[in-house]
C-alpha cells in the first residue's frame, strides 16, 4: 500500500512539475514537490523506506530535467539519510517542525544545486540564484503543509503507534 501510494505520488508530481507548475511559478521560481516528499518520507518512515522513497523522487526529477542522471537522486537520498539519523531528536509530529525541516533541506538542496551548476558552467547570476534559493525554499516549505496531511493520513499504522 505504502509503495503504491509513493510511486503514484512520484508519477503524479512528475507530470505536474513538468507541465502545470512551470506556469504557476513566482518570478520564475517553482516549488519543489519532489523534495517535499523526500523530506516528509524521511521524517515519517523507517530509514530504509525513506532512503528508497527519496531515491525514487530524485530519479523522477533527474529523468525530467537537463541535469545529469543521479544528481538529484544522490542529493535527495543523502538528505533523507541525514534527516533519518537526526529525526528522533526532532518533534516530528508537529507540522511546524516538519515545515522547518523542509525549509532547511530545501535551502541546502538549492544551495548545493547552485554550487554544482556554478562549478559545471561557471555561469550563474548572483541575485536570481539567491532569490531562487531563499524565496523558492520558503515557497516549498509553505506548500509542504498539504503533503504533511497526506503523510499523516497514510503513514503506516506501526509508526503511528510508535509516536503516540
Amino acid at each position, binding site marked *: 500500500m505504502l509503495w503504491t501510494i509513493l510511486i503514484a505520488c512520484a*508519477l503524479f508530481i*512528475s*507530470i*505536474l*512539475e*513538468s*507541465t*502545470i507548475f*512551470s*506556469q504557476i*511559478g513566482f*518570478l*520564475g*521560481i*517553482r516549488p*519543489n514537490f*519532489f523534495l517535499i516528499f523526500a523530506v516528509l518520507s524521511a521524517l515519517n518512515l*523507517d*530509514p*530504509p523506506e*525513506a*532512503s*528508497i522513497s*527519496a*531515491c525514487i523522487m*530524485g*530519479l*523522477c*526529477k*533527474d*529523468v*525530467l*530535467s*537537463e*541535469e*545529469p*542522471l*543521479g*544528481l*538529484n*537522486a*544522490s542529493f535527495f*537520498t*543523502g538528505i533523507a*539519510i541525514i534527516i*533519518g539519523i537526526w529525526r528522533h531528536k526532532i518533534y516530528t509530529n508537529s507540522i511546524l517542525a516538519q515545515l522547518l525541516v523542509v525549509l532547511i533541506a530545501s535551502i541546502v538542496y*538549492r544551495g548545493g*544545486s*547552485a554550487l554544482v*551548476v556554478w562549478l*559545471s*558552467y561557471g*555561469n*550563474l*547570476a548572483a541575485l*536570481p*540564484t539567491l*532569490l*531562487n534559493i531563499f524565496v*523558492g525554499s520558503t515557497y516549498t516549505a509553505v506548500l509542504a503543509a498539504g503533503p504533511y496531511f497526506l503523510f499523516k493520513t497514510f503513514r503506516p499504522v506501526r509508526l503511528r503507534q510508535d509516536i503516540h
Partner: protein
Amino acid sequence: MRIRKNKEKRFLKIFLPTFFPLVICLSLLVVPSKFSNHIKTTLSWPLVPIQKTFLTAGTAARNTLLWIPRSWNASSRIKDLEEDVFMLENMVVAQKATVDRLQTELASVTEYYREGVLNQKPLMANVVAYDTSDLRNSMLIDVGSSHGVTEDSVVIADAALVGTVSTVGKSTSRVLLITDPASKVPARILETEDVGVVEGGSGDTCRLKYLSRWGQRVEKGYKVVSSSIGDVFPDALFIATIADDIDSEGSPYRTLRLRPRVNPNRMNTVMVLKK
C-alpha cells in the same frame, strides 16, 4: 557473540537498505552522458501523452482565466493584434539586419547568407513538458530523430531564438533554452554591431557577455540578434532586448542583462530548423 549477531542483523536490516540507494545514485553519476541521456529519453517517453494532455488542459485553464478579464473590457482583439505586431516586429528586426548586411557587404556574402538560411528546413513541434529542475531551463518537444532532428538543431518561436536541441530521442527531443546556465549563443547588438556571447543565468533573463568595455555606447532597448559565427545559428535571429548594464569592475569585458524576446514558459508550439 549475541551482541555481534545483533550488530550483523542491524547492519543487514537497516544500514544496507538505507545506504544501498545512495550507492546506486552515485554510481549513476559516472555513467557516460550519451547513455544516461538515452535512459532519460526512454524513461520519459511513456509520460509524453499524459504530459501533453496536462499541458493542453493547463494552457486552456490559463487562457480561460485570461479570457474573462479580456472579454470584460473587450480587449481580446487588441491582444490578437499585439501578437501580430510582436511577430512582425521580430521579422522586421531580422529583415533590418539583412538589409544592413546587404548595404555593407559584398554580393557573394549575401549569396552565402541566403544559402545558409535556406539550407535549414523548418519543422513544427509541440511543447510537451518543461524542466523540473530549479536552476536549469529546458523543455521537451514531440519531434525526434525519426523526424530528422539532430543535436544542436536551432529552435525558434515567433521568429525569435528559443534555444538548441541538446538531447534527441526517437520521437522526443530536449531543447536547451537560451536562459539555461549551459547555453552559449554567439550574438551581436543590432544597432552597434558589437559582438559578444549570450549566456543564460538561473532565472528568466540572460546576459550578453564578453563585450568590449571600450566599445560603442549601448542603450536600454537595443536589440540583440544571433551571429552565424561557429555555423550553429542562422544570422540575425532576434534573441533579446537589452534591459540593464551589469557593472563588473576590474573586468576587461562588459556584461549586459537581457530580456529574452519570447517567454519559453508561455509557448505551445516551436519551430525546429533541421540541418
